[in-house]
């Protein structure tokens, strides 16, 4: 479904992503592990088209997307739920969600269906339809961000560190919802996390990123028992 071939990305002259190749099949649930600053966000932004790789290629469903503008990539069904949530703080919950449905604007029925689906996942959002997104707590904002990303029925969802800075209770809730999205809604999910414990528990496969290079990959059981991964990401 998604294929990266020897991707290099630089920001402001600084090489951040170096020679990353990976492939994710339809319906898979894959983790991207890496410490802070390893380049996870940069990689995701490259896939989503916010940054343009200066070498290598990104293909989605067989079509090269690395030169497309972001909105065209979204229209193809590849949606990034960004780190830091990137909500519209002054707009209501409802409007945030409706903007998530921008690629399918006009299709009233479909939008309503998706709205109901998101409210079913996160009942708390339904209670606060008219509250401004900016006044939400961190956990609620994360839910809204995920909900918004689902509004256009993406074929593939990139989730960038949804658990960062969240309380243990909320982390668990979010983890459940993401598994649910992958399994029940049949959405391919690529999840970036430095909380390896959580990520490796719910995903099937994972890549490990260090200083912009992909240093390790394999299925989760394998990764969990890897000595280096244990020491660096999971702890004694």
């Amino acid at each position, binding site marked *: 479904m998604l294929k990266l071939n020897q991707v290099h990305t630089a920001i402001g002259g600084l090489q951040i992503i170096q020679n990353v190749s990976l492939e994710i099949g339809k319906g898979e649930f894959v983790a991207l592990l890496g410490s802070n600053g390893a380049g996870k966000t940069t990689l995701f932004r490259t896939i989503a088209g916010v940054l343009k790789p200066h070498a290598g290629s990104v293909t989605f469903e067989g079509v090269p997307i690395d030169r497309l503008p972001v909105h065209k990539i979204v229209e193809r069904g590849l949606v990034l739920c960004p780190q830091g949530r990137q909500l519209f703080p002054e707009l209501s919950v409802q409007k945030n969600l409706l903007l998530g449905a921008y690629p399918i604007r006009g299709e009233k029925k479909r939008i309503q269906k998706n709205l109901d689906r998101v409210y079913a996942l996160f009942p708390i959002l339904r209670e606060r339809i008219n509250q401004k997104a900016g006044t939400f707590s*961190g956990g609620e904002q994360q839910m809204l961000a995920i909900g918004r990303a689902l509004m256009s029925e993406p074929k593939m969802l990139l989730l960038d560190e949804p658990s960062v800075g969240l309380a243990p209770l909320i982390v668990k809730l979010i983890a459940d919802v993401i598994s649910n999205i992958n399994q029940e809604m049949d959405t391919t999910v690529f999840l970036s996390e430095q909380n390896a414990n959580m990520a490796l528990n719910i995903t099937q496969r994972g890549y490990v990123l260090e200083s912009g290079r992909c240093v390790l990959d394999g299925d989760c059981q394998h990764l969990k028992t890897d000595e280096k991964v244990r020491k660096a990401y999971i702890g004694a």
Partner: protein
Amino acid sequence: MLSVKSLTKQFGGLTAVRDVSFDIRPGEVFAVIGPNGAGKSTLFNMMTGTLKPTWGKVFIGEDEISGRRPYQIVARGVARIFQTTSLFDQLRVIDNMMIAYKWRTGLGFWNTLLHTPGWKKYQAEAFMNAMETLAFVGLAEKSEQLIPTLSQEEQKRLAIGIALVSKPKIVLLDEPTGGLIQEETDRITRLIEKIREQGITVCLIEHKMQMIMGLANRIAVLNYGEKIAEGTPDEIKNNQAVIEAYLGGEIHA
């Protein structure tokens, strides 16, 4: 050491912190935990003068510091780091440290302009202290580097170094390991222990329970702006209210 008396903060209609009191004892590591939006950072902001409390007071020893400006509070020995790593990222590592040391010196406008005899002395003193503290946080070799070239962990260390350089009595650390992986978290934990060994009191906000439980002498738990518990790690672990509001019955994350 540092005591907080009935602190309350309202933002418009929202009460972010409600009637919170506690005392931090000299030499301990005091942790503040709680769900997102519980008001932890707001509490820190009031303790350091970044925000004015709507109600309540903060004392350092006998001295009331609430209502004073941040720089006055720093001068009374309270240093802090921010939740999102905050550095002077247009400047070099050493410059960051010197700036933080400046208030302890006489490096003011006239001394600088006129290069008075004191100026040289202060300049040397500032440099020495900066280098010493950099060595303490493990960044001695990086003194000439620019901030963007540092790793995340190094940036966190530098942030802690900036707080320490002016020799505070107490440092307030807001999520010093936020976003770090386990390995790095462990190293920062060791650094915090080292700070405690220096006799500096530490007040800490974290979400990483494993780390907190091992490090803190005492913990206060906030929920919806209110303090719902205070005690030793063992007491907190078994506190029913805390489990329901925050821990969710599971103690590692």
